[in-house]
């Protein structure tokens, strides 16, 4: 059994203390970092709750319940930020990516504590694969939300659609890993390839519109 709430306290403690010395300018970064890890902790509880209710086995829990719960939970601190603070578009990007990265980091730490860190090659692949997957899901939400929240007519359907897209990406990743064999390696490379393609498209778009 892993006491993830204890791990959370251990990691959030120094961050909280550091916040006091960093000044107001950095409050947002620390807030989203702790929020990302906090929602990861809560997601673990909610996943277990739904898995018990639906009597789901490990495969069904990871391929169907976890993606929905985790992506919704990741969006909650961001929705709070959007609705309460009405930030500028460039700040939305930063917030989503910090939440996604800290979520992935906390998940990896819990995974390492539960399964050990002896196999470096597997940890490396998993670290990059899962980390990239959460960042891709965050990027889908952030780039989309920046556009969607500028258009009133698109806000509800757009937010729902982006959440759906990130849930599906996450679910497909988990589905391929749960299947094992060669598909597992396709899954690990999928987010990295998506990130690379996204970066290339972004650069092409920038060079066309800002030169």
């Amino acid at each position, binding site marked *: 059994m892993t006491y993830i709430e204890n791990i959370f306290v251990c990691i959030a403690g120094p961050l909280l203390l550091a916040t006091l010395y960093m000044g107001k300018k950095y409050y947002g970064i620390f807030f989203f970092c702790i929020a990302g890890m906090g929602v990861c902790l809560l997601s673990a509880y909610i996943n277990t709750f739904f898995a018990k209710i*639906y009597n789901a086995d490990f495969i069904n829990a990871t391929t169907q319940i976890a993606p929905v719960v985790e992506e919704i939970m990741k969006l909650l601190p961001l929705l709070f930020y959007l609705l309460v603070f009405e930030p500028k578009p460039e700040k939305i990007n930063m917030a989503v990516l910090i939440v996604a990265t800290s979520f992935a980091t906390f998940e990896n730490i819990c995974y390492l504590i539960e399964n050990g860190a002896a196999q470096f090659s597997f940890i490396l692949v998993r670290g990059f694969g899962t980390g990239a997957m959460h960042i891709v899901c965050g990027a889908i939400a952030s780039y989309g939300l920046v556009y969607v929240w500028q258009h009133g007519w698109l806000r509800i*359907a757009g937010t*729902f*659609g982006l*959440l759906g*897209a990130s849930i*599906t990406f996450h679910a*497909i990743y988990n*589905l*391929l890993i749960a299947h094992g064999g060669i598909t597992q390696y396709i899954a690990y490379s999928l987010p990295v390839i998506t990130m690379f393609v996204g970066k290339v498209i972004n650069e092409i778009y920038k060079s066309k519109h800002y030169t």
Partner: protein
Amino acid sequence: MIELLDNFSQFLVTLLATIGAGILFYKSRVQAYLLLTCFFGTFMLGTLYWTLHFLLFNYTPQIFYVSEFVWIASYMFLLTLGYTLSTPDERKFRHPAVWLVPIFCIPQLILYLLRGDILFNLLICGLTMAVAWYSTRGLVYARRQSGKLRAMKFFHIAVLRIIILEYCLWTSSCFWISDTYTNPYFWIDFLLTASLFALLPATKKAVST
């Protein structure tokens, strides 16, 4: 085998429709095409997950809402698209024909609630009923118009065809016969796939009015 063929063909067709609608949006920057791209895109994502799950594990997902989530999102986009294409006069228009929508949908909704998941069925049926309500009203309104405005009827017919086929599909899934060609579920789903693609030219016609 037929289930895989059915799901895979639907994925391919919706992927092509997404690309087609995306190209139309890229060329014209018309809001309606963006909504249509989002509709096809989210529908395609739901079908992709459903197909992959069936392909890898030999059964469809039955515990939680992954595909269902994006399908709900897709109908939200379709509802927004219908609203975007309607004129202020059309929104004020009233006709008793719209009451055919709850008469057709609610008995089937009761069947789904008795046999399936309550939350998902309430959400998806509520949304599809709203889409059908707008389209029935739009169809009656468009048939009373002359000239280019009359072409809007093709869009509303295409939307209503999708909704009717969806309800037939869900109802036939409640009375599952077999995993073979004799099951009407698969034929309805093939028809639905064709109807989904038909929405692309119908929207193009509606936008050109």
